[in-house]
């Protein structure tokens, strides 16, 4: 049941209103300056959950809204516009993984508590510095009581806050509660000041911990498409901020937005953003519809979003000039989060390569 354009607009508007009221960029600055390893404000997260957004993609029978990833993308983009620090994107992607690959018991065990915001979940996949799901070294072996998992995931998003990890190992995906004995985590301070952690695993899990029907690539495509949605939100905000500056900053006796070279570059940024808007919507809709071309479309969205946001944030800093290089100005905060998202779930180069392979060349 895709949302109609009117419904999409209504949802986006309600997200915008919430952000303006509850969590503008100043809120992110407070979280950052507090330097709590959690990486977000628990009160904001409770408010997000109360809006029903944690369960947006969870089926109605498990306490969710059943609106799928397309609706989730609108929310994640809307929060991205103001750099809202929250574990929402990670949790939604994990919920989609359980919905997609879990059995009835697993769904019942986790999805209702995710939907009400009491469980925070995150997918732990990458191991080295690069996204390379085809070569995971985390081992999962059958043992008498179930499974034995060992490995290290050095940069897990929301790793400090998560109560549940969906762990990608060499032989499949596993549900690992954060309080499992043998799971250790240590916060990692990263450029975007969000709640990353290194998670090491040397754990024994029950036999039913495995997401038996999960396909790793499909699970990761949720992460990727939501990252692209957040990137779109960042781009919208940075571009609006830059246009505002172009309209008011005066040099040589005129607004700098009256210089044609900057006008044409602004037109290019607008073009790139509008193309990504279509790609993100198509990718999320394809995932919801389990369409044949969903992989191609997700790689399209992530690659285009990466190139676009790299350009938009760099041009934003350049057009702001020196002021854009200061910590006091918001544009640098977007630049940092953008770089983090550029690599999340694979860089643009990774996804161009994947797109070409999917299309046979």
């Amino acid at each position: 049941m895709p949302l109609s354009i009117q419904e999409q607009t209504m949802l986006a508007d309600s997200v915008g209103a919430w952000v303006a009221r509850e969590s503008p960029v100043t809120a992110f600055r407070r979280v950052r300056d507090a330097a709590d390893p959690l990486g977000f404000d628990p009160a904001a997260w409770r408010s997000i959950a109360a809006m029903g957004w944690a369960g947006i993609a969870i089926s109605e029978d498990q306490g969710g809204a059943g609106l799928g990833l397309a609706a989730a993308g609108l929310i994640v983009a809307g929060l991205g516009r103001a750099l809202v620090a929250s574990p929402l994107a990670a949790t939604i992607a994990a919920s989609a993984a359980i919905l997609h690959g879990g059995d009835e018991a697993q769904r019942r065990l986790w999805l209702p508590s995710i939907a009400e915001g009491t469980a925070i979940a995150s997918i732990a996949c990458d191991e080295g510095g690069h996204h390379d799901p085809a070569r995971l070294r985390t081992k999962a072996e059958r043992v008498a009581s179930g499974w034995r998992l060992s490995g290290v995931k050095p940069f897990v998003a929301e790793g400090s806050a998560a109560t549940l990890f969906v762990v990608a190992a060499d032989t499949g995906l596993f549900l690992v509660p954060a309080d499992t004995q043998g799971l250790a985590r240590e916060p990692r301070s990263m450029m975007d000041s969000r709640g990353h952690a290194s998670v090491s695993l040397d754990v024994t899990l029950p036999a039913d911990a495995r997401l038996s029907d999960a396909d790793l690539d499909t699970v990761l495509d949720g992460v990727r498409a939501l990252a692209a949605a957040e990137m779109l939100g960042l781009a919208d905000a940075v571009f609006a901020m830059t246009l505002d500056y172009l309209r008011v900053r005066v040099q040589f006796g005129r607004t700098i937005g009256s210089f044609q070279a900057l006008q044409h570059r602004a037109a290019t940024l607008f073009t790139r953003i509008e193309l990504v808007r279509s790609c993100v919507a198509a990718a999320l809709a394809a995932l919801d519809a389990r369409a044949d071309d969903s992989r191609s479309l997700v790689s399209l969205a992530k690659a285009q979003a990466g190139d676009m946001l790299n350009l938009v944030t760099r041009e934003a800093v350049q057009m702001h000039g020196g002021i854009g290089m200061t910590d006091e100005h918001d544009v640098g905060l977007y630049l940092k989060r953008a770089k983090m998202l550029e690599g999340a779930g694979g860089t643009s180069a990774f996804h161009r390569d994947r797109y070409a392979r999917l299309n046979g060349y």
Partner: protein
Amino acid sequence: MASGSEGFRRASRDWLGTHFPRALAGLGPRYMSSETPPEPTPAFLAWKRAIAEKGWGVPTWPCQYGGAGLSEEEAAILAEEMAAAGAWTPIGGMGVMMFGPTLLEYGTEQQKLRHLPGIADGSIRWCQGYSEPGAGSDLASLQCRAEDKGDHFLVNGQKVWTSGAQWSDWCFALVRTDPSDKRGGISFLMIDMRSPGVTVKPIRMISGSSPFCETFFDNVEVPKDNLLGATGQGWTIGKRLLQHERGGISQMSSDVPPLHALALTHLAISDDGRLADGELRVRIARCEMEALALALTVARIQSESEEGGPPQATSILKNVGAWLAQERAELMLEILGTRGLGWEGAGFAAPELEACRQWLFSKAVSIYGGTTEIQNDIVAKRMLGLKDA
């Protein structure tokens, strides 16, 4: 999908199965966007007659003007069925893409009944009289005069880049009816190319062909009936027509075979099945991904404007479409290598010679229909609200 539309899908498929000649499958680009199209075959002519009678060359135009009165949804189904059958419409050109929609919007009932059916059945060709030697990007400074002589206008002046003027029956032209008002002094005329005083001189292009002409008007009498809209409304109507042109360019490259298929047949392949030339592989992926992004954006903008969203994004689509057409032509030559640099004669296959001419012609796509620079100006000023000093 409603059952009515399924019925329409089946009916379309059946009709195409009966009427579309198999021999023409996939030859759309060769006939319709080639620098050197083949001579029309009997099969081609029969197909053109059949589709014209059905009104499917301009499927959404009302039936009384030669269309089929289809809804957008039905037209989309028809397009899908035609693509699936390798079918394509032999009715195209500026009349269908640009002038027809404008006439539908601004014409009197009498003008529509007179001019649309000939466009719809492909029997009447139209050319565009916009640019002048001193008025290219700065179209509003055009000088071609039309003096009001009571029952007719007397037209004197020169147009350039009148595409296909040498084969055209009619010309839609912007002319100056008031020298004292730059934009408000422009009117939109339909000019019969057989009128006394019209002279056409083809311009040889770098690709060797002459798709454009210089057109001279020397005391040409144009009846008042042939004024579209009001006197002085030409700038508004003319710009609206350009939006149709830009929309057309952004969708141009959708019905061509994918580059990677060509690359796989011409170039070395690694053991793992990838194109061995890593740089070319990335460029092909970029180009194909951009094409898909553009197609998705065209679709999104169309659906948003149907639901009342912002309609005026043709400028950005035109620029992306132009980039794509040019990058695609560049990549064709990269793939063919020296084989794609032949001009004529022995030693080259027809598609190789065609690639070379297309590469040359593609350089015009970012110039005609308003240059890339003009589109960027439009976006910056009208959509982004950046003002000049």
